[in-house]
């Protein structure tokens, strides 16, 4: 993830999709995967490129849960909150992680190391409860084993 935004790195992402309305969501996704979140600067650049008003870009961006407007932590922890995970104790796993990290879901640790989130469902229900850290999945997590996933103490 790149943190420093300069105009040319934004332009590089813009170039990937044609300047049409239906590129909007894809562009926002590409921006977020490059910069980690959608800054005002990025959204203005997208609006300009697609010839849309900034408010219509913001309105679309805020509609979708995927988009973040604040920088995230270096690592992203997602606790699956699907039905199977729910009945198998995902709530307790989340509580344990919140305790260990000292933050609530949706928040980032002050040192910007971890962001803690819940996900509607990863679709790996047979291995519930499931936790994803960056792009690694961990199945059958228990409240006891959950804190070990983040290591250290």
């Amino acid at each position, binding site marked *: 993830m790149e943190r420093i935004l300069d105009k040319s790195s934004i332009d590089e992402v813009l170039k990937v999709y044609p300047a049409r309305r239906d590129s909007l969501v894809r562009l926002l996704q590409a921006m977020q995967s490059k910069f980690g979140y959608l800054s005002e600067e990025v959204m203005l650049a997208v609006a300009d490129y697609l010839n849309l008003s900034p408010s219509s870009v913001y309105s*679309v961006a805020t509609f979708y*849960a995927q988009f973040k407007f604040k920088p995230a932590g270096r690592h992203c922890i997602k606790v699956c909150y699907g039905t199977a995970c729910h009945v198998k104790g995902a709530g307790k796993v989340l509580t344990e992680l919140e305790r260990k990290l000292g933050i609530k879901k949706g928040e980032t640790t002050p040192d910007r190391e971890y962001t803690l989130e819940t996900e509607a469902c990863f679709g790996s229900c047979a291995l519930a409860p499931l936790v994803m850290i960056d792009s690694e999945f961990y199945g059958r997590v228990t409240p006891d084993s959950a804190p070990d996933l983040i290591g250290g103490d």
Partner: protein
Amino acid sequence: MGLNSLRKESIHEWNEVLNPSRPQIFVGMSTCGEASGVVAVNKAIQDGLEEHGIDAVVNKTGCLGICYCEPLVDIIKPGKPRISYRSVEKTNVSGLLKDYILDDNPRPDLALGAWGQEFKGIPDLFELDFMKFQVRIALRNAGVINPENFSHYLARGGYQGFEKALDMDPEEIIAEIEKAGLRGRGGAGFPTGMKWKLCRKSRNFPKYLICNADEGDPGAFMDRSLLESDPHSVLEGMLIGAYAIGCSRGFIYIRAEYPLAIKRLKIALEHMKRHHLLGENILGSGFSFDIEIREGAGAFVCGEETALMKSIEGQRGTPYSRPPFPAQAGLWGKPTNINNVETWANVPVILEKGAGWFNRHGTEKSKGTKTFALAGKVNNTGLIEVPMGMTLEKIVYAIGGGVCDGKELKAVQTGGPAGGCLPLAKLGLTVDYESLAEAGSIMGSGGMIVLDEDDSMLETARYFLAFIQEESCGKCVPCRTGTRQMLAILDTFIKGRGKPQDIETLLSLGDSIKKTSLCGLGQAAPNPVLTTINYFRGEYEKGINPKLLRAKAHQ
């Protein structure tokens, strides 16, 4: 320009896998395998082969659906059946490779089953309770082939349905789908042939085709597994549909949370391009068609077809009221046909084997099979495909092996947030569109969660209602504020402070939300509450504030 010579080569290649001259190893590489540690196992296999100096071919495969035994590894030795090993750990890989491949001891203690026969004390895989009641049509290749290998799909009859379709009139194809009785697997069960016919009739061009792979229902993973394990079956279905309807452009709308499915789809689309199955003048037939992948952005409501189309257009994914139906005016106002992943995967087989072969399975009104993601408090969790009309009891006990830890079954939740909780007394119910709807639930896309005696029905209802309330797009009032009110009332019962009359309030509020919401999200939102009141009213009564009850008794 056909696929015949390529198919011949592919069959040759596939036979070399099944009857190999050197050992073949299959590693179940799907998301559920990854979550249970298959990446480390795969590495251990490479190391083990090197350590023992074994010359073997390692293949990836998808998911057989036997998730409770993941990671799953299969071995085929020359002249021997394919053997599946269960719950393989990186620490026992080296021993297994040595014992079986070098010393010819197939290690029955680690094996799950042998394919198609009993073998040296290892049971026949397809005679295991989990497998023997299944009929695998949509999942015909899942866990069998390497999903990233085009030859494997081709060798197993792939693209035969499409080639057959190219020799037929589009109307004939649609008639065959109608005769098969195929209904949408995305939830509502609308007859697929009829949908295609409507879209074909329109004289407005261009026409679009969509595969709905949003699979937002928490507790459902059928479509993910299918796309990860056999992407071509879905793509071939889309190709046949596009040809029959007359569509020139197709989209797969897939949730971003499914990175492996997206990767495998991209690989499969590359195969198609390379072999003239996409683009201009497909297989020299004059028919042209292209498919693009669009990733969802984390909004449940975008699984709803009108919202989905708005999202593809780059707008906020809010639904609009129908008519006009997508078949009349969909994407960019043009006729659009949208079907679910599993619906598409059924199409090629219907063409290849005929409607009569397909509709032997199922009930009077629900033909064929349905996949279910069996999860929750059940021993054998996994992905299953059963003929329509099987009882819930058979699914949970015969296939699922009953409830975990010897606990009592309390309810089976079907249909996700739009569905309902069915109690023990309803276990004799058959799974087909009509019976489930009659009992107050729905077939839905196929999530099936088993709940035991420890699960509170109020909590379960709350879980789903809270989910819907969070995902409500806010466009229509009944869904936006109605679900919020229901949730607030439900919470009073959960805290033991419910008002006696509020059970009725929930029922009437639920009824109005169902009748007046704009889209299926709101129309189904009250179901989890309504079914739990219907079948587990006692739990709501227990949540009534005792003081209020006493006051009522004094009146």
